[in-house]
Structures are given as C-alpha cells and as structure tokens.
C-alpha cells in the first residue's frame, strides 16, 4: 500500500534494465519499497539488475516481458498481479531507434513505433485494469519531451512518444476517481546508454534527477512531471513557434 507521500511498497518495472527505471527503483527502495518485479526481455543484464537491487535489501523477481509481443502481456503481467497488490507500475521500456536508418527501413521504424506506442498501449491497459481492480496504485509512464513537438532529427521516436503521451493522458482521465493515479513523466536529454554517443542537448540531466522528480510527483499526485522542471516553460515556447522557424532550429 502507498503511504501518505505516495511511496509504494511494491513496484513493477516494465523495462527492467532501463537505467532511468533502475535509478527510480533504487530511490524507492531507500524509502518504502520492499518488493520489486523487473519485467523485461530475459538477459544477463536483467539478472544483474535484479541482483543489484537485492543487495539493497529488496525482494526482487524477474518476469519475461517483451513489448513487441502484446499477445503475451495479459499472461506475463497477470502473473505479477496475482501474487499481490502492485502499488506502482513504472512503464519504462522504449527504444530510440536510429532515425537515419529507420527512414530508409520502414520495418525498423515500425518496430520503434510498436515498442514505444503499441507495446505501451497494450501493457498500459493490462496494468490499468489490474490497478483499477485493486482500487489503488500509480502508473508512472516515461514519456519524453521529444513527443511534445516532433523534430526533424528524431520524428519517428518523437511521434511514437507523442502517441504514448496522449494515450497516457487519456488513460489518466479515464481512471480519474478510481483510486489509480497516472503520472506522465517527460524527461529531456538524460545521460544513459540510450543517449550515449549523442551530442548532449541543453538542460541535459541524470537518471537520479528523474528519480527525484518522480518521488516529488508521487507525493504531489502530479499528472505531469518535466525533468528538469524548466523544460515545461521551454517546451511551451517551442510548441508555439511557427513551423518555418521551428524547422530551422538547430535542435
């Protein structure tokens, strides 16, 4: 059960090796979290992540979960909810793709869309149903500023995050009053392996900063969280730029 500060005792991470998700999880273990489910594609990385969290004192389980296999979501995630209440779900899986290649290889582009959007729609709905049945819980969705306005440089990823973001907002409205809280987190450039090797964007931040923002958002029961917070203003300005100007921005 969550406490007065929205801190969960049990946590399900979708995308169990995500660096951002693991930073959030470490933070929550330092607070109230005792049980963690890491859902992801089986890999040594997933087991290693589980081991590291165990060393922090949590009881950690792993579950096979592939965003690209929506047909399996009900089963894979149903198993977790059958074991007991899940106080928080962190939807963290995602892939950046390779914009240049994906433009030439539509099938690769579709995989980005299917992971980030379709996979999240499926897993998000499965989790939402289970959370609603237990009458409480937070669904925290890692969206991205990239979805706020798609840019020339990564519009395939950006459009998939735009879809995810819109989906999560709508889901939050659908679940309003059901005891389930949906929080959309929009980080800017976060230094993780996903962005390794890319030129750093302004206001670049860290997984730990995202963890801090998530903790604060849980306490406030926020619906939208920007990391860093200044991006809220920056993005609202960018959003209103005329197309011609936006197109020529070096972002």
């Amino acid at each position, binding site marked *: *059960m969550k*406490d*007065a500060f929205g801190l969960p005792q049990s946590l399900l991470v979708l995308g169990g090796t995500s660096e951002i998700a693991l930073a959030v999880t470490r933070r929550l273990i330092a*607070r109230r979290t005792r049980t963690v489910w890491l859902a992801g594609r089986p890999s040594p990385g997933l087991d290693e992540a589980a081991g590291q969290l165990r060393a922090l004192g949590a009881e950690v389980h792993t579950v096979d979960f592939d965003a690209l296999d929506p047909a399996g979501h009900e089963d894979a995630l149903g198993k977790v909810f059958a074991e007991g209440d899940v106080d928080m779900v962190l939807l963290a899986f995602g892939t950046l793709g390779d914009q240049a290649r994906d433009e030439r290889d539509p099938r690769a582009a579709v995989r980005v869309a299917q992971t980030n959007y379709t996979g999240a729609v499926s897993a998000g709905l499965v989790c939402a149903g289970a959370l*609603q049945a*237990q*009458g*409480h819980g937070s669904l925290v969705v890692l969206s991205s500023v990239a979805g706020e306005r798609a840019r020339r440089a990564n519009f395939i990823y950006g459009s998939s995050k735009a879809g995810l973001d819109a989906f999560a907002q709508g889901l939050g409205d659908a679940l309003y*009053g059901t*005891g389930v809280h949906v929080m959309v987190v929009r980080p800017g450039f976060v230094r993780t392996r996903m962005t390794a090797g890319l030129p750093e964007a302004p206001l670049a931040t860290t997984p730990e900063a995202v963890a801090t923002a998530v903790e604060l958002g849980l306490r406030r029961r926020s619906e939208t969280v920007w990391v860093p917070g200044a991006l809220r203003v920056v993005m609202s300005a960018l959003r209103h730029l005329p197309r011609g100007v936006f197109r020529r921005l070096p972002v």
Partner: protein
Amino acid sequence: MPADTVSVTGWGRTAPSAARLVRPRTFEEAALAVRGCGARGGIARGLGRAYGDAAQNAGGEVFDMTGLDRIHAIDADGGTVLCDAGVSLHRLMEVLLPLGWFVPVTPGTRYVTVGGAIGADIHGKNHHVSGSFSRHVLSLELLTADGQVRTVAPGTPLFEATAGGMGLTGVILTATVRLQPVRTSWMSVDTERASDLDDLMARLADTDHRYRYSVAWIDLLARGRATGRAVLTRGDHAPLDALPRSARREPLSFRTSRLPAAPSFVPEGLLSRTTVGLFNELWFRKAPRSRTGQLQRIPAFFHPLDGVPHWNRIYGRGGFVQYQFVVGHGREDTLRRIVRRISQRRCPSFLAVLKRFGDADPGWLSFPVPGWTLALDIPASLPGLGAFLDELDEEVAAAGGRVYLAKDSRLRPELLAAMYPRLDDFRALRAELDPRGVFTSDLSRRLRL
C-alpha cells in the same frame, strides 16, 4: 442496500483509494454486507476522522456505519446509554447533556462515532483520570467475519482485541457506555502560560492530578530559549453555583455554532512557516499568563476546531499528516530531543498538543501508555518530511514508545511489532476469527496488521 464506488481518504486527505461504499440501514443489512463481501474484504467506517488510511479499503468494501444511528436506551439514573455504533458523540451530547450526563471521553472533535471511538480506543483530555474510551464500555455487539453477532464483554480477549483494533476484528453494531454525570454544560477553565518545555512538563507533572481535564498547546515553531513554550488549559465541569444567574436557568443547554466551511480550493503553500509562525505567536501572546475559573462552553473547551467545518482543506490538495506518539515516564529526554528537532526543522505546524497520559487500558493495540504524548499536524508537501518522521519513529521506538494508528498514514511496517508488543496476539486472534481476512483496510495492508 445503497452502494457506489467512491474515492476515499482519511481526515488528512492523503493516499486516496477507491472502494464500494455500502450503507447498511439495519443490522441484517450489515450482516449481509459482511457475508457478501468480495475477495478484497471490507472495513467499517464511522465519520472518517481518523487521519490516515484506517477506514478505507482499496478495491473492496467500506461499510458506512453512520446510517445505524439509533439511541436505544438511556438509563438516566444509572448513567449508561445503549446505542448504535454509528451514533456520533455530537449526537450523544445533544441528547444526554440536558439529562445531566456527558460522554466519558471526548477527542478533539465531537464528530466521531461510537464505533470509531472504540475502534481507535480514543483518549481525551481526561486520560490521566479516566483512561481511554473502552474503559467505559460495558458491553458491545460485534458482527464477526462469519456473519454472526457476538456480545462481547470487557475482560475477554475479543474485547481487548477490538478496543483499539481499528475495525479489524469485525463491525461493532452497538455499545453500552457508562456516562459522566455533570451539573452544567459549562466548563470551568484555568489557563496558564509555560515559558519553555521544562517549565511545561514540570507544571503538568506537578498539578495535573488536580484537574479532570488537562492539555497543553505547544508552539513548535518557537526556538532557542522559548523552545516548547506552551499554553496550558485545564479544568472541570462547572458546578451550578459557578454559573452567573442568567445561565442558571438552563444550566444544561448544549449550544454549538459553526462558521462557514473552509473553501474547497486552497492554493498550495498557504500554510508557510511565516503564516503559521505568526499565528502561533499571536495565539501565545493573547493567552493570559494565568487565569482561573473562566467559564467556557463545551465546544470551546473541547472542540475548538469543530467550529470550522472542513478545516482540513486548508492544507490544500496535498493534504497533511498528523504525527502523534507517546513515550513513557522516565523518557523525558526523548521527548525533549524530539521537540527540539521539530522546532529546529521549522515544520510549519499549528499549535501542537502535549498531554500526560495516565494508566493504560488493556486493548492490545490501544495507543495510550503512561507517559507523554505529543501530536502535531504537518503539511504532507513539506520536503523531506517522510524521512524526518522515520527518524523520529526510530527515537520513539528506541524509547519503548509508539505512534497512534488512528493518526498514522506513513509508519514503516518493520517498527510496528516493537511499538505494539501484543501485535502477535492480535494477529493470531485475527487468523482464528477471520481466516479469510474479510476485515481488511488500507492500514492493515500497509502495516501488515
């Protein structure tokens, strides 16, 4: 039976969860509701004045007991009342005061039910004399998980598990309560200021026994030499001859007045250190240094906050936490340290309450033990509050003290067994009486009660 799915919180308005709210209108309906509840169980709810998650049950049922509010019998000579558990103490006062009787124990609000008073085994300003509410319960009827109604008498394990058992042994349907005789509906009140915490504790320890009711409001924003400065208000029911002639005509009339409700929207940060500090300062200054025998009405003395309906909204949508703990006599050092830490941290806390408890009652999870109890409200949005209160818990537990479950919304479950040594007995009784875990609340899930 009326029922709908609603989002429920406690008085502190944190951690909402959704439940089916069922409103039984008869004992039969209550029994049906208990027998028919689903896998996530059910929990009784009175007027929702517990601050945390005691009277909510995510995904399950919440039994709103306020529809069962009949007063069945009053023994106006012997001073007992038999009533439904959904009757409020406010209602009892309205009915009983004109007959010359008062409730044996009242908390800081009249808007609690008899069921809630037993479920949390509440204490009042008279704890050092009268103990907690359950001491005055002569008998109760309990609807247990099997759908049966049992008559439960003091001195039995089921009674002791139920007094302070936070609704987890069953649904209390009725109770027979022993009353306090009074000659008037007025209080005779002595007020004095204490300049700091030591002064305050000395005054309470030396002279509490002279008063039936005693409490100190302490300013936790005062620092340095003034740390722990306070205003003591102590008193008793006024005798007839203390009333002015005009009041003697209707000495037992019970009058209450309410101000307009607090607005439903309050901007964040209304209660800042500055505003709360200013309030506390004014309030301390306006209290007389010493005054005796002042006549006050019952609401003014016992329930000042009831004058503003929904005052809990002033904390905004983030809600607030009430932290209340007790440490035993001889643990004054812990109390001093905690008061110092709170005031150093400058928590924007309105007047907190310090009281000296008397003898404990036998409820297994009953909160009061002889010693010192401090209660304070803090906005939940205060940065770092969770970790800070965790540290205070450690101090409290190390001193053999405990926090009050009716106020709790954030205790670390690992500390519960140290704070409540009868926890294992409580769990064992529940396992036997309610093997399916019909009675479940968010509190019981969170703390694994």
